């Protein structure tokens, strides 16, 4: 599935403008801090409204031409830069939140699979506030994947993980990219990560 | 289970009218349902069309208002009771005053205050103001009153020593151990202290008129007299 993005958005006193198309695979967004990477993901997810432009994923127009799909039908799996776990739900209920809402046919991963490769099965009954930084990050990844999305938006998803864990998760991301053929928009500053995962790199300029 | 007629009555009648209702029920009638509150509140309820049978007001103006609103059944308005005003002081007080024209109430108060029900609003207060005016004492006292929400609240101010004197109904003073009656105001006050009663237009209860009549009966009057009310 192809991604076709051309958006403009004013934030404070600067304007974020990007335009790129990409085939299937993992597209790494690369650029300095504050360049607008998170803003782009938020626009694709439907959490931030572009001032003008369009966002198309495969055949579907998410935004533009008078269309502005609400986030819940865009089917994006968004791993936020800041986690955003639901503080009032235990880890298990965080993980199944999107899973339970998805059509069974749309799901492509079970809770057991997710907890296994993320190494979070011992955390299922914990409250989010008791998690370490890396633990919370892994739960956030699991929550997004379990919702059975058609496109993944990952904002520095591996930043607080150790090398071993990082390797495991990258393997899964590769499988998602290659076997499920899901388009992935991926923000990272880690050279090694990008070199290993990215099908292509889009520079987001200052 | 059938209930008796609905009676709206001034709060100062609480004990006496409850006793009367019990006596009536003891004769095999359904016990009347009595709501005690300020006459003003009850009158407004009647005027708003409340489904009640009998209204007993603590003063005439509110009964007039109800009558003017066309809520009274013709020919049923009558004076049920009278009351007297008394000057009270805390039980421990040694104050002596004789109530008469120009009696030195103002001086007796000194820098302190005279407790009474709101003289601009509440019946008992209006009567007190009228009585003091007639005695020529009001102009001196006016700036020294502590107008309370109702007679009971005025009584409480005296009971608690917050005011050295208060003017309340004889019936209230009669029942309180914490105050002492210093003197009784002349019965011939103007306007006279009278509790009018009337059957209401909205009345549907078949025993409403009978209960009203019972209140005026010998047995009924005896009960009110025992609580310190005077027959009108």
């Amino acid at each position, binding site marked *: 599935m192809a991604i076709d993005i051309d958006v403009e958005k004013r934030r404070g006193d600067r304007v974020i403008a990007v335009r790129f198309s990409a085939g299937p695979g993992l597209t790494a967004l690369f650029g300095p801090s504050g360049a607008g990477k998170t803003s782009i993901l938020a626009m694709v*997810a*439907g*959490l931030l409204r572009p001032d003008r432009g369009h966002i198309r994923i495969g055949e579907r127009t998410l935004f533009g031409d008078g269309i502005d799909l*609400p*986030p*819940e039908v*865009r*089917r*994006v*799996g*968004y791993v*936020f830069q*800041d986690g*955003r776990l*639901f*503080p*009032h*739900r*235990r880890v298990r209920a965080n993980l199944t*939140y*999107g899973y339970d*809402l*998805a059509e069974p046919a749309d799901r492509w991963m079970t809770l057991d699979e997710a907890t296994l490769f993320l190494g979070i099965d011992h955390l299922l009954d914990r*409250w*989010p*506030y008791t998690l370490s930084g890396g633990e919370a990050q892994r739960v956030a990844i699991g*929550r*997004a994947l379990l*919702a059975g999305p058609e496109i993944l938006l990952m904002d520095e998803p591996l930043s607080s993980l150790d090398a071993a864990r990082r390797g495991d998760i990258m393997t899964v991301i590769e499988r998602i990219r290659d076997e499920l053929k899901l388009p992935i928009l991926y923000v990272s500053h880690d050279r090694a990560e990008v070199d290993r995962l990215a099908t292509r790199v889009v520079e987001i300029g200052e | 289970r059938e209930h008796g007629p*609905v009676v*709206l009555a001034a*709060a*100062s009648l*609480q*004990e006496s009218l409850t006793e009367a209702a019990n006596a009536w029920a003891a004769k095999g009638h359904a016990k009347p*349902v*009595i*709501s*005690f*509150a300020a006459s003003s*509140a*009850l009158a*407004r*309820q009647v005027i*708003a*069309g*409340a*489904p*009640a049978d009998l209204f007993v007001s603590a003063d005439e103006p509110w009964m007039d208002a109800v009558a003017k609103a066309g809520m009274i059944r013709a020919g049923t308005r009558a004076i049920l009771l009278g009351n007297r005003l008394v000057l009270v002081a805390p039980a421990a007080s040694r104050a002596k005053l004789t109530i008469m024209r120009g009696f030195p109430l103002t001086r007796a108060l000194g820098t302190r205050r005279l407790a009474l029900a709101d003289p601009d609003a509440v019946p008992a207060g209006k009567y007190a103001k009228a009585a003091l005016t007639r005695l020529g004492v009001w102009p001196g006292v006016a700036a020294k009153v502590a107008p309370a929400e*109702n007679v*009971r609240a005025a*009584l409480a101010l005296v009971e608690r020593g917050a005011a050295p004197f208060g003017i309340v109904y004889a019936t*209230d003073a009669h*029942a*309180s*151990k914490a105050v002492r009656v210093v003197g009784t105001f002349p019965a011939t006050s103007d306007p006279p202290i009278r509790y009018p009663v009337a059957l209401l237009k909205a009345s549907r209860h078949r025993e409403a008129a009978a209960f009203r009549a019972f209140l005026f009966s010998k047995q009924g009057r005896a009960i009110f007299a025992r609580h310190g009310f005077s027959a009108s």
Partner: protein
Amino acid sequence: MLSPEEWGIVALSLKVGGVAVLATLPIAFGLAWVLARYRFPGRVILDGLVHLPLVLPPVVTGWLLLIAFGPLGPAGRWLESWFGATLMFRWTGAALAAAIMALPLMVRAMRLSIEGIDRRLEGAARTLGASPWHSFWSVSLPLALPGILAALVLGFARSIGEFGATITFVSNIPGETRTLPLAIYSALQVPGGEAMVTRLALLSVLLSLGALILSEWLARRTHGGRQRHGD
């Protein structure tokens, strides 16, 4: 320990307070939500209207209710002709008075909690497939729970103490509208009734203490996830 009459008064107070608070809850939450989340012309007016029963002496509120919901009032007539229902001299009228008096307190408490919700969590819920409605039920509402519990306690306590509006609107009818505060008023009218007043006041206090303990227990049962820790 309690006379049957006193039991009756307590039961009535519980019924009036309980119905008032539970019936008001969704309305108050809706108002709190609108006031917290939306800016629109007339917002201050709406806010002012909500605060009205707090600002006006209760007797005035009762009088306004009487004018509107009395048998001759517009709302009263409408209720009568459509539902054959009347609030005059009925416990339902007492519940209405209590509800209106509790409203401003309930709205404020819930509004504070709603304003404290991290709205980014609602966005997260949406990306996970939740409709606005589902996100409201599964995220916003649970996060506003502390305010809802506070609203329940405040509203119930206020209802248990409501006097002026009730006696003015629906009078002081034994078994129907004579709740605890009205019974206390009646006892206060009797010289030497202080013992009775004390007794009834203690009952009021016990009732609301019960509500308080219940709410603390509920808060503790659900607070796990909301706890903020010092690291």
